[in-house]
């Protein structure tokens, strides 16, 4: 129940295209869903996050779509650029009301944006 399943494992998108990464969870106690971007040799960097009372959140070219009934959420990267080539992780936690922030991560998606 603590797992977050992420797909696809890898993704190749042409420059200017839309990258879509999907995640699914089982534990309905999760109340915070962030996406992290990680470049080789670096730690994960927070990209965008959403709470379950919102169905969509957009920040620049990045959008999270959240489907509470299906227990699924996805990251959309519009106008994908070569600089977006990185590994993306979805995550979930249930610490919004307690201060205990324990993130459960997906397995990651390696995105390659071809020029």
């Amino acid at each position, binding site marked *: 129940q603590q797992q977050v399943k*992420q797909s696809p494992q890898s993704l190749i998108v042409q420059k200017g295209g839309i990258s879509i990464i999907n995640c699914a969870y089982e534990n309905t106690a999760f109340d*915070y869903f*962030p996406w*992290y971007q990680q470049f080789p*040799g*670096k*730690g*994960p*960097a*927070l990209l965008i*996050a959403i709470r379950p009372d919102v169905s969509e959140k957009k920040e620049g070219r990045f959008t999270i779509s959240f489907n509470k009934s299906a227990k699924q959420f996805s990251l959309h990267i519009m106008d994908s650029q070569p600089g977006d080539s990185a590994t993306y*992780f979805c*995550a979930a*936690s249930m*610490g*919004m*009301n*307690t*201060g*205990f*922030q*324990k*993130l*459960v*991560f*997906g*397995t*990651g998606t390696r995105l390659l944006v071809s020029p």
Partner: protein
Amino acid sequence: DAGVTQSPTHLIKTRGQQVTLRCSPKSGHDTVSWYQQALGQGPQFIFQYYEEEERQRGNFPDRFSGHQFPNYSSELNVNALLLGDSALYLCASSKWGRGNEKLFFGSGTQLSVL
């Protein structure tokens, strides 16, 4: 404003040895968490420290221990190293309290156990 800093960046140890990794949280943060990231995997939660106490622990053996100091910095200690402990160890910091959900990660310490 310095972010989360970790030291050392790389470390090579042999089986059975002990290792200590260090972390300084982002300015204004008082909570430190440690994660283990094996190659090609997502980070796995080890434990979280707040007010110098371990508040939560993931599914890791007692060989993994930690400490938080009054200045909020933290150490991760791993005893009796195994080959399987080879991984990137990440420190994350946050501000304790409801609604303070954002975790900021350091660049990690790459530990190789030979």
